[in-house]
């Protein structure tokens, strides 16, 4: 099916009657997914937003429960799962949601906060027509123009979007858009990432044997230990739990945390199993490229390139992957 670009506003308006619609836009100079007010401009000119869409499902600060102390403790769960639609999300970010689904919905426990939001979220992906210089999703096994995890997949053909529903949620969207949709439309060819990275399943296995390798000392040296890479990463999901206390009552919240911070793994008493940047950078890269593969059978890096773009020290995960690939050839 096809949707005329001139009908896009109307299409979103239809959705926003039922749900909060998030669109890529520029807020105070920062490109991010923001709640669409029916008029603000929708910025599809960028390949990727600066901030990832993960906070729609996993807010940077999320209230979990409120409590009242005293002779009796009262605990009240805070549930906030509005119906939401995210529009214009790129295939790499859709894959990232898939990664978070695995973390929060699988392996013994289901995370209720995430599950509630996820269930009420409809994902409308718009494929890329071009790629950025830091994009490498096709090296990570994705396609810039197709997001298998999306509910609705849209591709830009110039004047129209080719629209396809992948799930039941997607079909409902198509149903709502019925008056606007036209038959036909051919999906355009996918653009190719200019940046090619030598990623392969073997790299993950190779890495799992490189824990003691001198490479970590070297690649971690420029790291300044900030959380930029983890906070702009669409898949980084680590969190901390803390309370916001006002004398005898307050709320318990969880918030993004970063494995790059010194207090992340420090235990009561001061012992820290990952005391320096070597250990922390190793943990992050290993988590992205090896540990996660071992546990969930997919990589935790979607190839969006945000970390490479934003790192203050200009560290680059793609250069690291290629280094590891070379390491392999040397040892072979």
């Amino acid at each position: 099916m096809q949707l005329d670009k001139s009908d896009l506003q109307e299409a979103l308006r239809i959705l926003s009657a039922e749900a909060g619609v998030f669109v890529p836009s520029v807020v105070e100079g920062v490109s991010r997914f923001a709640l669409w007010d029916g008029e603000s401009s929708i910025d599809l000119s960028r390949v990727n937003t600066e901030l990832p869409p993960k906070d729609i499902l996993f807010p940077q600060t999320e209230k979990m429960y409120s409590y009242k102390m005293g002779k009796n403790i009262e605990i009240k769960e805070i549930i906030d799962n509005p119906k939401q639609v995210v529009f214009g999300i790129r295939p790499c970010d859709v894959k990232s949601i898939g990664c978070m689904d695995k973390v929060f919905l699988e392996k013994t426990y289901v995370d209720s906060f995430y599950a509630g939001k996820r269930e009420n979220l409809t994902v409308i992906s718009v494929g890329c027509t071009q790629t950025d210089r830091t994009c490498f999703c096709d090296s990570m096994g994705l396609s810039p123009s197709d997001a298998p995890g999306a509910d609705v997949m849209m591709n830009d053909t110039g004047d129209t979007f080719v629209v396809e529903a992948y799930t039941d949620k997607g079909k409902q969207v198509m149903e709502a858009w019925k008056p606007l949709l036209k038959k036909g439309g051919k999906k355009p060819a996918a653009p190719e990432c200019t940046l090619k990275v030598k990623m392969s399943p073997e790299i993950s296995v190779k890495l799992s044997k490189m824990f003691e390798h001198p490479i970590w000392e070297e690649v971690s040296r420029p790291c300044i230990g900030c959380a930029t890479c983890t906070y702009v990463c669409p898949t980084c999901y680590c969190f901390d739990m803390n309370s916001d206390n006002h004398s005898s009552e307050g709320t318990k919240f969880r918030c993004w945390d970063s494995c790059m911070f010194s207090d992340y793994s420090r235990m009561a008493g001061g012992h820290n199993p990952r005391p320096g940047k070597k250990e922390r950078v190793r943990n992050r890269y290993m988590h992205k490229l090896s540990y996660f593969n071992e546990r969930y059978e997919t990589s935790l890096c979607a190839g969006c390139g945000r970390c490479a773009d934003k790192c203050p020290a200009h560290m680059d995960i793609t250069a690291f992957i290629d280094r590891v690939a070379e390491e392999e050839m040397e040892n072979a």
Partner: protein
Amino acid sequence: MNDTLEIKREAQLRETARRLLEDGTVGYIIGWGTTRFEDKTAPLFAAKPEEADRLVWNEYCINSLAKYSLDDKYPEKKIGICVRGCDSRAVNRLVNDKQIERENLFLIGMPCSGKENSVCEGCSHKNPVVYDILIGEPVEENTEEKASAERFREIEEFEKMSPDERYEFWAKQYDKCIRCYACRNICPACSCKECYADQYMVGWQGKQNNRAESQVYGLTRAYHVGDRCIECGECERVCPMGLPIMRQTKKMLKDINDLFGNYECGVESERAPVLGEYDLTDRDEFM
């Protein structure tokens, strides 16, 4: 920027670096190296003479390097660091703050005519203020008029706004802050072994990300480094959300200059920070 001169400087840098590594003057040299992208360089740690040729010198050598010396406080041999004007002031900052020993460093002075960075516009020290060896000839400094006109121009503009406008401006900025602490970690004046902001259990700072907490973080940091800021602009460069962080610290510096006389940090090798000393003749405006 005189290209041939800078290309020559790069060659001289590599030659000097190789010599220093060969004769064992330094254990390794911290400089800039290439990345995948032409317009980005990354910190490079060259330990072997043959690695000297990987050092680059161009308009994209943008990262401040001095703070990496904190990773190696007790080096076996001297650490060679390439220092531009701002980096050399960062070294003075760290030495003044008793974070590193000057004897442990070998400073390779790199006269710098400005990088792809807006902060370089009003630079007052293009040539390193301290070095052990200078690569090539010094470059021409900005005139004092230009540097001082540029220095607090933005602050003066901003002060003209009404208090509510100013508050709104900053509130919107801090709404953007994601508290990645890149500004803190890159800053040569932020050298606390453990930052107050990481001590969540103590209660200085909540970990939740909201306007109030980010405001407290932003102002605390501004105040804490304000009298020691060397105006290198790294905080602003690294901020992934584009907050004009320098506008806070420069306000502090402007007031210090107004109240206590001319003051530029990191220019002299030994100078206590303004808030670390006092003068009996300080203005007494509190009654």
